[in-house]
């Protein structure tokens, strides 16, 4: 079911004007990030600084740079739905007793995500950085969307955003950092999403729960169990399935 949903209820549809305060905020934030990034005198630091340049541009001009504009407006609804503080923002971290490359390898195979993300049914790699996602809403309602990878640095970061035409508008990133020397990994998920208005809006909101960060935290806990212990802890079978062989 590919329902085309437009973010008309939560988005004023017109280009949101960035007021003076937001622009100063963006400038200040960008300056801080660029300053910090450059001061680290390392590749990740420089990348961080470079990443903040569009923000500085937006702060100065009230608009995203043309390159970003093109990137963002190719999707239209992702950018508009998620610009600024809109939508629901979640950030959760987990520390794993596995080296970074192992964790990155597991996550970058997007088909693996439903094994520990409770609300995902299936993720299909469509090739070319694109993927198709199917999630489970309340009452068995399926929500679907396509997404594309927008940033990928091996063993460091994966970022994606949803493409127009899906039931969910979302963007997010996962960063992978070494922890406790090189024996562990600190994985951080940053997720921003905006369920569409109308019939799916409420359902999707419910699917993510009243506390979306708790949902993600539980997903990451299952990821940890899977990667460290090799299986997800279960105290009992699903109701009605535990009848045994009649010993």
């Amino acid at each position, binding site marked *: 079911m590919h329902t085309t949903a437009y973010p008309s209820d939560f988005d004023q549809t017109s280009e949101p004007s960035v007021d003076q305060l937001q622009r100063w905020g963006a400038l200040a934030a960008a300056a801080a990030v660029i300053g910090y990034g450059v001061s680290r005198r390392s590749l990740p630091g420089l990348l961080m600084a470079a990443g903040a340049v569009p923000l500085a541009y937006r702060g100065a001009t009230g608009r995203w740079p043309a390159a970003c504009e093109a990137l963002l407006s190719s999707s239209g609804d992702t950018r508009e739905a998620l610009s600024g503080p809109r939508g629901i923002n979640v950030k959760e971290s987990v*520390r794993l*007793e596995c080296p970074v490359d192992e964790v990155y390898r597991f996550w970058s195979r997007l088909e693996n995500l439903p094994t520990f993300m409770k609300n995902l049914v299936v993720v299909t790699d469509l090739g070319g950085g694109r993927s198709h996602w199917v999630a489970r809403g309340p009452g068995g309602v399926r929500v679907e969307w396509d997404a594309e990878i927008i940033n990928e640095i091996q063993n460091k970061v994966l970022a994606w955003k949803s493409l127009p035409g899906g039931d969910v508008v979302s963007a997010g990133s996962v960063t992978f950092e070494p922890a*406790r020397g090189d024996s*562990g990994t600190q994985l951080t998920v940053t997720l921003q999403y905006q369920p569409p208005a109308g019939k799916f809006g409420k359902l999707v909101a419910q699917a993510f729960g009243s506390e979306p960060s*708790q949902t993600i*935290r*539980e997903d990451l*806990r299952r990821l*940890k*169990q899977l990667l*460290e*212990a*090799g*299986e*997800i*802890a*279960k*105290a*009992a*079978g699903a109701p009605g399935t*535990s*009848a*045994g*062989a*009649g*010993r």
Partner: protein
Amino acid sequence: MKAACYYGKEDIRVERVPDPQILNPRDAIVKVTSTAICGSDLHIYDGYIPTMERGDILGHEFMGEVVEVGRGNERLKVGDRVVVPFTIACGHCFFCHKQLWSLCDNSNPNAWLAEKMAGYSGSALFGYSHIYGGYPGGQAEYARVPFSDVGPIKVPESLSDEQVLFLSDIFPTGYMAAENCDIQPGDTVAVWGCGPVGQFAIKSAWLLGAERVIAIDRFPERLAMAHSQGKAEVLNYEEVDVTEALRAMTGGQGPDSCIDAVGLEAHGTTLDAWYDRVKTSLYMATDRPHALRQAIAACRKGGTVSIPGVYGGWLDKFPLGAAFAKGLTLKMGQTHMHRYLPLLLGRIERGEIDPSFVITHRVSLDDAPEMYRTFRDKQDDCIKVVMKPH
């Protein structure tokens, strides 16, 4: 199969329930040959443990024969005779790697619940409420054992069930309690509570080199066991002022370490003990830490208070000021079971200890409801109950 199930405060029933099944690759199913009632099960019986649900299978001290093994388990095979540690640990997380097995990150599916209460969750336990994972327990004919490639220890046929069963909890728990005291030559160790864990703490204090062991209780049969089996000097707290007696016995210095093997339902004769009773009965407090208060008061300066007794909530009138003033070390927590199993099996095999001394009642699983009451009320000189499910 038959199992002892919780149906509410003081309501235990032996019922027919579905057999356990392999749910994960590292699981095994054990046919339970012997299982025991633990003093901490009595906290459940008395309704002190939250998140118990009707029908939950009880029991965390059990052993038996492996009858089924998951496809991911290369260490156990059908027919192995094993003792199962009561804490469930994955063996591969940060905490398991640090030998802090009872703090395993990955075994509790309800960790979020424990996190709400304690900030972080410890490992899951068998048959000990949903906050500890909701795993069915071992007071049953069969039990599913998760992560069974790192938990259960194989035991030789030359040792009887009764000699090795208590490797499942109370022997390692008493041993860790004594180990936490960091016993030095010449040390005096005082043990509050001469229940099964207290009895093993006494024996373990000797094994670890104590010069004197003093045991405190009020039940004559328990004090008698501590004296005859444990070779401890004994104090009946209904007859003497314990703090004063300990001071006198140690030349005014106090015991070097104090073990609280009583926990959250302490009984006492002093004013603070009555205060605890009133507050808990009005649901204004969760625990009655009378024994712990006394252990802190009695301990010598710079000594250690070791707490194998279970606490569940927020303590009232806890004398942290005294602990601070005397520079005490407090050590506590669920036993890091997996760390002790080979070590203590070795001590049993070498004849250094025969844990069966603590058993007073041998019954069938059908007797569970009656035996919970007998054990709780300390009737019939009951100290330890072992049940045979088959």
